[in-house]
């Protein structure tokens, strides 16, 4: 019996020892920070020997369908210029990446070499030491003012901007307006009168369809109202937290402009945003607030008209950003691709039906896809400001989307909504 006990004790000690070692490995990977430098050095050395070999880069982005087709044209152009580099693309939503990447980065790993992600997230990961910097790769002066702010911290540029979507206003079908004798408004009163007129059209479910997804379509509409009636400074103040949501001037925009429209039933209930495109295009709704990418989602972009709220002098410009994790096996090639996407890749992308605008100033109007040339001209005449919720990010972004969904169906809860937005705003 004593032999059995001894044998069992030995086995138990063995199991515990293995467990501790295994746990130690897991814990060690999570907490050790000094190892990252060594890892980078090693991978760089390996790459130097492989430079002439065929390299496959993995790229992650949010695009699929027609948007992906447009992006792949950029990738093809890069591959043509770099015969030794092959690019594999995977689609991931930013919401999903936000849960995957922090864990992978903590364990010194990455699911791809070049990754498209929110600006605030890139900065946060950069500050944690997970990303390559681009200070010596791109020239900040070649970009439209402010576009690098979202990916810059303490003078370090952690991401590169790709093309941007503008969120210029309410889109309508010219043929629809012609059929019912409608005209784009020149004043706020005309805008409200137009909505009242549209509401009376038989078969119309609501004058404006409200796009729904995780929430961003409603925040885009709200930001357009803020920019029109509060100006770019108010938007920037709200982003920095210097202006509160319960500030009387901010509240007035909701009370006097947005809420009356919601109460009058001029906005639909939130409808899944891609389904909303179809419903709007077939005439269930007359207006749809959406970014410029909608030009690539409709059957006939030449039938598209655009109504910005009268008096709007600023417009949200929301760039897509790319980052290169330190843990890439091919840092040189990955940086090369990121640089291409931030420069000549933009020229190619705006020439497709992506509906995007360049953030690199060397792209000219002539480079644009014809239906986007007018939009590009309009955008160049107004002040471009960053997207509000994308700039703040984090838990607050979700709160913002969620509270707007609440406001949309219960406009009387305005006070609660604004109070919550202030309460949840990140403390500096």
């Amino acid at each position: 019996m004593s032999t059995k006990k001894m044998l069992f004790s030995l086995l138990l000690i063995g199991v515990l020892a293995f467990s501790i070692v295994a746990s130690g490995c897991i814990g060690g990977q999570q907490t050790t920070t000094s190892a990252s430098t060594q890892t980078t050095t090693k991978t760089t050395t390996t790459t130097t020997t492989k430079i002439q070999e065929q390299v496959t880069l993995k790229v992650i982005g949010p695009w699929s369908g027609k948007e992906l087709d447009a992006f792949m044209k950029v990738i093809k152009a890069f591959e043509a210029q770099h015969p030794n580099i092959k690019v594999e693309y995977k689609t991931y939503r930013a919401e999903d990446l936000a849960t995957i990447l922090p864990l992978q980065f903590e364990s010194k790993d990455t699911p791809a070499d070049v990754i498209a992600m929110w600006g605030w997230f890139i900065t946060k990961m950069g500050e944690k030491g997970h990303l390559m910097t681009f200070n010596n790769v791109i020239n900040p002066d070649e970009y439209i003012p402010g576009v690098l702010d979202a990916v810059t911290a303490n003078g370090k540029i952690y991401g590169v901007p790709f093309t941007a979507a503008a969120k210029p206003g309410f889109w309508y079908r010219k043929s629809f307006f012609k059929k019912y004798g409608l005209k784009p408004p020149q004043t706020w009163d005309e805008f409200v009168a137009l909505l009242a007129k549209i509401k009376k059209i038989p078969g119309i479910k609501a004058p404006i369809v409200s796009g729904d997804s995780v929430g961003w379509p409603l925040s885009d509409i709200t930001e357009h109202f803020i920019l029109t009636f509060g100006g770019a400074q108010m938007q920037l103040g709200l982003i920095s937290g210097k202006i509160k949501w319960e500030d009387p001037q901010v509240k007035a925009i909701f009370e006097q402009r947005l809420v009356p429209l919601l109460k009058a039933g001029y906005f639909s209930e939130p409808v899944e945003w891609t389904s909303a495109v179809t419903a709007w295009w077939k005439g269930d709704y007359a207006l749809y607030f959406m970014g410029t990418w909608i030009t690539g989602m409709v059957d006939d972009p030449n039938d598209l008209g655009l109504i910005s709220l009268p008096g709007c002098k600023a417009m949200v410009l929301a760039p897509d950003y790319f980052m290169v994790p330190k843990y890439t096996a091919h840092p040189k090639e990955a940086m090369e691709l990121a640089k291409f996407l931030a420069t000549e890749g933009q020229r190619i992308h705006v020439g497709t039906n992506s509906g995007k605008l360049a953030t690199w100033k060397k792209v000219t109007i002539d480079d644009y896809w014809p239906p986007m040339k007018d939009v590009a001209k309009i955008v160049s005449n107004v002040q471009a400001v960053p997207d509000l919720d994308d700039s703040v990010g984090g838990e607050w972004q979700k709160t913002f989307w969620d509270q707007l969904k609440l406001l949309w169906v219960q406009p009387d809860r305005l006070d609660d909504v604004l109070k919550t937005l202030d309460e949840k705003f990140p403390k500096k």
Partner: protein
Amino acid sequence: MRKPRSLTPLFFLLPALVLMVPFVIYPVLKTIYFSFFLNGKFVGLDNYRHVLLSSDIINLERFPTKSPPWGSLINNIIFIAIHLPSTIFLGLGLALLLRKEEVKGSSLIKSIVFLGMVIPMIVGGLITRFLFEQGAGVIPSVLGALGIKSLDITWTAFPQTALFAVILGSIWIWTGFSMLMYSAGLASIPKDYYEAALIDGANKFQIFKNVTWPLLKPITIVVVAMTLLWDLKIFDIVYVATGGGPGGASMVLALQMWDYFARELNYNYAAVVAVLLTTLTLIPAMWLIRRRE
């Protein structure tokens, strides 16, 4: 004189221990450890105080007099209060109605009811979302046709109805499990008991009350415990159908933990909710184990 215990069973536990210690026990302990830290500093119970006093968890300003949000813990309790009895009685009712010897095609009907359990939860959430969508979903359309215009809306878009949409969707998914368990339980009851009761002159209700229900007690214990665990850790359906909104009206604890973790990147608060959730789920789990023993 006490007979020495055999060590043989412990040897059989070793392979499981090898996996359990590093991949379950260690992470659990580490999560508990994380819950007492914030930004790398030990903060005692401050994280627990912050999370439990947050209106995201219990919103006493609004509960119960005003419309939601009421907080994720309260939502979980409401979820249990409606979902648990509904799935038990629906499952039992269906199992009784669809006994093989009494209904033709009962297997097919049972398979259809069980379908909710077979599909991935994410798909279940999507179906729930569309079931309650105005214009596209069956529920608002039927209610509208019955003249209840106030419910002919997109349930997931309104704070008063969002949580109930998720609960009803979850009842649809989980009833299959309850029905299957009770069907198995009913099949195990000997027919002699029913024949004896009939000879004694018992009516159907008396037979159910005095024969069927007591003999199904072990099954009921399992169904109650499993449903409680399901209700406490509910995540997928809410995540897809409503995202916890609008305005946090359908937020539940597991999703709150996810938000702290994935959106706020605050692993310490997420660890607090994880510890609370684990503690809550341990209660029915231990109750189940003891009753089974």
